[in-house]
């Protein structure tokens, strides 16, 4: 007699401890083995692209905060670059430096969360997560100092930033950089060489280089697959060509590589910050821009290297005060394209791990 078995369909999410928000995976299981997986999107869809069509160019900035809510500064940055490109607004030197400092601090903060929650998904019971939140707190303190808020900063404006740095910012940044080095070492000691993490994450959820390019992956996910592609290097925006930094890449594109690439990127961010705060010039922090920006008719695409990947804004102007169309190229969404292929055949635990290693933010996936 043969035992009749049938696959087992499980809905992971939208409310699940490790779906990073409200993501739903419809997983078909054969015992513990994932034989099929279908991602279901849309639980956090707020129609930001539609809302942007009815707001002024300035009024869209608070909306971009809410895209990748763990990296508001870079979202502001990308949008402001697009508006500047469209309306041809010059940016003063000091503002460029402030923007780079903010973007790199934001990258640190966002990577701390993605690495922490990845390790938490691997099962290290909240320890790395809380350690990294402790350090993120220090960074957020600085953001609070300059912008007055701790999550949705709304700090950058077309033509500069909304306010100048307070005088206590640079000493605080210096102190932060000094302390971060020790903490980075602590994370490395905590789990880098851990045998269990190695057994769990190495070789799991492989995204090959060709596949990564084909699915339009970007950011750490693409670089972990071995492709040396960083918008800051290949298409330097703002003043990134003035800084010295490396692009860390992975070898085979497994979960461990993605984790390592993020950690290495944090180190590179620290390097950029070291160079940036020393060179920051005095001067105006923004260009005088009218409240209602009226860019000439046209369309433009500006992209930056956000913590999750290539964040792009495709803006179409009809000459009015509101964007005619504001499309967001969301890196989190694109990185998820191959999730099904990455988890098929692995265990259900690896599904969570792979998903965690892509490190999406639902605000950006659904928009």
């Amino acid at each position, binding site marked *: 007699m043969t035992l009749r078995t049938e696959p087992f369909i499980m809905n992971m999410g939208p409310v699940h401890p490790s779906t990073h928000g409200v993501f739903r995976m419809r997983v078909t299981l054969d015992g513990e083995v994932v034989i099929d997986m279908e991602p279901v999107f849309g639980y956090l869809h707020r129609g930001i692209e539609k809302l942007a069509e009815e707001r002024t160019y*300035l009024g869209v900035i608070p909306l971009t905060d809410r895209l990748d809510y763990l990296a508001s500064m870079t979202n502001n940055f990308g949008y402001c670059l697009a508006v500047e490109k469209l309306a041809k607004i010059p940016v003063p030197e000091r503002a460029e430096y402030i923007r780079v400092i903010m973007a790199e601090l934001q990258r640190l903060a966002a990577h701390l969360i993605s690495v922490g929650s990845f390790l938490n998904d691997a099962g290290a019971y909240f320890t790395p997560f809380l350690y990294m939140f402790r350090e993120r707190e220090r960074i957020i303190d600085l953001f*609070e*100092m300059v912008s*007055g808020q701790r999550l949705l900063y709304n700090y950058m404006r077309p033509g500069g930033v909304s306010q100048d740095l307070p005088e206590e910012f640079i000493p605080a940044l210096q102190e932060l950089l000094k302390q971060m080095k020790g903490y980075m070492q*602590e994370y490395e000691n905590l789990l880098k*060489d851990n045998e269990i993490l190695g057994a769990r994450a190495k070789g799991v959820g492989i995204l090959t280089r060709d596949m990564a390019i084909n699915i339009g992956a970007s950011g750490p996910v693409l670089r972990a697959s071995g492709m040396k592609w960083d918008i800051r290097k290949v298409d330097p925006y703002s003043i990134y060509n003035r800084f010295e930094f490396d692009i860390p890449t992975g070898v085979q594109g497994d979960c461990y590589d993605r984790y390592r690439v993020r950690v290495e990127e944090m180190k590179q961010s620290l390097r950029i910050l070291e160079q940036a705060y020393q060179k920051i010039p005095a001067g105006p922090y923004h260009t005088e821009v009218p*409240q209602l920006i009226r860019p000439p008719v046209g369309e433009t695409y500006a992209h930056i290297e956000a913590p999750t990947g290539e964040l792009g804004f495709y803006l179409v102007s009809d000459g009015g005060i509101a964007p005619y169309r504001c499309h967001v190229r969301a890196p989190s969404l694109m990185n998820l394209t191959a999730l099904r292929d990455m988890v098929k055949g692995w265990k259900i635990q690896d599904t969570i791990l792979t998903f965690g290693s892509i490190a999406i933010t639902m605000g950006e996936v659904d928009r």
Partner: protein
Amino acid sequence: MKFSNYGLGIIKGMGVTLKNLFRASPTTQYPEQRLTVSKRIRGTELVWSVEKCTGCATCARTCPQGVIRIVTHPGEAGGDPNRYVVETLEVDSGYCIHCGLCVEACPYNALFLGYKFERAKYRRQELVQSKEDMSISQETPSAYYHPELAGKLPKQTLLIDREKK
């Protein structure tokens, strides 16, 4: 022989957690211990100066959420022609996203963000601020977009200062 695959990583990690066992926690226990917020905090209430305001309603036009309601009239004859009398100024802070764009837009520096932040209310209607609630005479404005006010406010507590050597 390399020991990196024989549990050395685990031992290193255990060392880190043990070190943290004896380290002071960064937690602040909120109601008893308090941190000083940033000087530029975007607090829960707008602060409005009746003397400076000319009733131009730029704030209401700038607000991306459309939560500022302003009603003005030209005032009595013989008054300043560029100045309107503000009859009503209402902000529904329940819908306010605290982006601060109204403060930046105000051409006469009559609008500020509040410095206080503990303004939980029981009912939604109570979140609507009238112009009396927002008056600068009873509220502390924060230094958001008004760096000249920063001198009077206390220094922000920073987590990094606790471990400064």
